[in-house]
């Protein structure tokens, strides 16, 4: 029962995060780029629980990001990006507290991997609007914006995932 409750809390967190990213942060965009809040949640999950769990959270968050209105791109692209972000940043987890520079580095790497994989799949599928120059324009802004929001989002998300952590990991 508690396992289901934990999953439900993470699910609700993902839905609220994606909705906030779409409806509120679109007003604070830099050249149209908004911070990847869902990606920050996945990174927090990775730092607390490791690669397997974070990949799963990344899959769920990515799928919601792929399907939530007003998206119109091929579904599964953000899911793939965030699965890889969760797994790879999860490998950076180690016992004890993460240092601040290390966390910032992990977030920057995650933002780069996520947006790049998304752009790359778009190029492969020849989705309209995706081009190498536009990717070069968007990816650096996304990385910087995510790092800027790290001190506000990551500590909260870390705390939540620590509290959600069961006594023994699966």
């Amino acid at each position, binding site marked *: 029962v508690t396992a289901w409750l934990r999953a439900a809390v993470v699910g609700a967190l993902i*839905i609220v995060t*994606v*909705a*906030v990213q*779409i*409806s*509120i942060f*679109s*007003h*604070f*965009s830099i*050249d*149209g*780029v*908004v911070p990847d809040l869902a990606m920050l949640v996945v990174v927090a999950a990775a730092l607390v*629980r*490791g*690669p*397997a769990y974070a*990949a*799963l959270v*990344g*899959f769920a968050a*990515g*799928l*919601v990001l*792929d*399907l*939530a*209105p*007003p*998206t*119109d*791109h*091929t*579904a*599964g692209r953000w*899911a*793939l990006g965030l*699965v*890889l972000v969760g*797994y790879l940043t*999860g490998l950076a*987890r180690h016992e*004890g507290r993460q240092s601040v520079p290390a966390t910032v580095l992990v977030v920057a790497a995650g933002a780069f991997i996520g947006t790049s994989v*998304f*752009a790359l799949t*778009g190029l492969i*599928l020849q*989705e*309209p*609007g*995706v081009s190498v120059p*536009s990717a070069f324009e*968007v990816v650096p*802004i*996304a990385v910087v914006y995510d790092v800027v929001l790290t001190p506000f989002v990551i500590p909260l998300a870390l705390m939540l995932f620590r509290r959600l952590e069961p006594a*023994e*990991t*699966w």
Partner: protein
Amino acid sequence: MRPVGPEPGRSRAVLGLLVLACVTIITLDARHGARGSPVDPLRYAVARVVGPVEVGGARALKPLTDIPSYFGSVHRLRAEYAEVQAENAALLQRLRVAQANSHRNAEVDSIARFADTAGYHVVQAQVVGMGPAQSFSRTVTIDAGTRAGVAPDLTVIDADGLVGRVLSATPTTATVLLIVDSDSTVGSRLGDSMELGFLDGGRDVSGDGTLQLRLVDHTVSARIGDTVLTWGSRNGAPYLPGIPVGTVVGVHSSPAELTETAQVRPFVDFSSLDVVGVITGSAFGGHTEIASRGTR
């Protein structure tokens, strides 16, 4: 100290499974034909859950999200300015339609219909979500859905002109494809010469963006300052005829291309979309024709 996590082999198996799932979803969704994607029911289900959360979030934090627009200007001046701007927009729109009407011939009485703007049924809606530039597409969520009469393919406008068309709708929200999206093509005509053309969305992933107009008849050319209107199609879907779209700001022709392209700056400011209107029908008997078209 936290307990040691699962062994790397198991993590890799989880990763493999999830990547496989993602690739499957991408393949299923990318290969869909005209009959719609197998992922569409899932998309609809997520839209029904996330859409209302977006609406709630946008409404609850309206004072906060208004902050960027308040920067650098006094509140009173802003209100006054908005009033003058609205008045100006209304006058400009009247002028544009009048210009077009003065050039119309007997066959083009669709534009005269637009002059009688009171003849349209317009559903007002608020923009509650915007697609990020990271997604490389220009789409927005609005807080009106099928319950308000909004259906796929309906025309979306604001006080300045054409905004886009409805892609999909749930009972309470709808997704709108903006004309600046690179996937968008609008059949249009020049207000002065009545020449027909196709207006393609820009390559820009952000900002206002300019549109590219390709004229059908390559013996004629566009003039800078010409007004571009929608051309319209059968049953008024996806775009109704005679809606102002933008002004020609540049003309470009190369020997390699058969048709000349003109840069068109849209009348609508896409970086600050707020209240829009969805045309759900007209007093001229278009209501059922327009609304019954359910294709994309």
